[in-house]
């Protein structure tokens, strides 16, 4: 133990000299040791998994629109997300930060809405979030891999690496990405008690979006929005593993008709809407 630590320090020192940082040194000393315990490391390393090789997990969200539109004034999922992830209330719609939010059928499915929308759906709002696409255009265009696809299908953001070029926002056909036009902390001034001490905020000049709460998934919990919806016993949000035929999401997708946003773009969203 002691010797290997000293070795690590040496390696860290040498690699720091070459600007490599400690990462490489760690990898040299413990090759694969940390990865082995990972549940999600079965798929490709990152980015788009090779065709035919199916990862063990592909996280997906199913939104029961029929159930949700009955809860017209409910914002529980949105509020739960906002308070979990320290998302500021900006006020100005041009600069809003949104991870999960409610919008109408006409806006979310502008290319699908019929000339005669059924009365139940017309003008009704239901939640929407990042689609965590199987082939995410945002990941394709990011010049720094600040946004990347995890082997379990989550399209993740590395807030430390994002340079704020907003190429991903131009690439995302779903309007799911928000840019920090200003320092988000200033929206919490005087409201510091509202901050979740377990999670960070973001800084100005980076792009953010829904992450399916990986820090909660790691603890075996469901995303904060799903938990809030279940707490209300509305059960409009169903979260699970799309690659497990016996998962709750797969079961309900077998039974009900589902649609996805802009399927013609070939992004293969992981968010399904039951209509």
């Amino acid at each position, binding site marked *: *133990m002691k010797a*290997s*630590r000293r070795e*690590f*320090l040496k390696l*860290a020192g040498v690699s*720091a000299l070459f600007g490599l*940082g*400690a*990462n490489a040194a*760690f990898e040299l000393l413990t090759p694969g*040791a*940390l*990865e082995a*315990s*990972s549940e*999600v*490391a079965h798929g490709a390393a*990152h980015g788009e998994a090779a065709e035919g090789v199916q990862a063990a997990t592909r996280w997906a969200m199913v939104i029961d629109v029929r159930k949700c539109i009955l809860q017209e004034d409910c914002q529980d999922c949105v509020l739960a997300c906002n308070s979990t992830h*320290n998302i500021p209330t900006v006020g100005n719609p041009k600069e809003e930060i949104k991870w999960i939010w409610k919008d109408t059928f006409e806006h979310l499915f502008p290319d699908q809405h019929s000339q005669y929308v059924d009365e139940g759906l017309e003008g009704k709002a239901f939640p929407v979030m990042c689609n965590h696409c199987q082939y995410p255009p945002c990941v394709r265009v990011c010049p720094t891999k600040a946004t*990347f696809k*995890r082997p*379990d299908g989550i399209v*993740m953001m*590395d*807030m*430390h690496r994002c340079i704020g070029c907003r190429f991903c926002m131009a690439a995302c056909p779903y309007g799911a990405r928000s840019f920090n036009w200003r*320092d988000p*902390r200033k929206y919490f001034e005087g409201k*510091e008690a509202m*901050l*979740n*001490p*377990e*999670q*960070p*905020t*973001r*800084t100005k000049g980076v792009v953010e979006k829904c992450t399916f709460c*990986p*820090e909660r998934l*790691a603890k075996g919990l469901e995303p904060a929005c799903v938990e809030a919806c279940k707490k209300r016993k509305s059960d409009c949000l169903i979260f699970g593993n799309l690659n497990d035929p016996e998962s709750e999401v797969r079961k309900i997708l077998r039974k009900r008709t589902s649609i996805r946003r802009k399927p013609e773009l070939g992004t293969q969203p992981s968010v399904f809407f039951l209509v």
Partner: protein
Amino acid sequence: MYDLNKILVGLAIFLLFFTFPILYGMGSAVPAPKPKLDTPEIQKLTDKKCVEDTHFMRTSHMQFLNYWRDKAVREDQRTYDSKLNGKKYDISLQNTCMKCHSNKKDFCDSCHTYASVKPYCWDCHIEPKAAKESM
């Protein structure tokens, strides 16, 4: 040689200008700060050890934090096996590091101010409450 005097004067001014910070601080050496380790959380520990040994943490915590960040964010590795004591730790600045080192002002800031480094951790990460009250 042309304008030798002017060149010499110019050089003198240049030298003075560039060594000014050193000259200005001469004789007013400040002793290196000792970061405080007396938080309630640390006092509760029977084996008062950080995730790795003190020397390593002191010299390499910045690379180590980067390494942790990459592990958690990019590789979804959220526990760390300590090479020091074999314990498992949650990889989290706010929920692991700062749980013990809840005295940001007397711990982080004391050295950072002394060394005049301004890490941007706290632009996003939320500092512990205790530290905030004492500020």
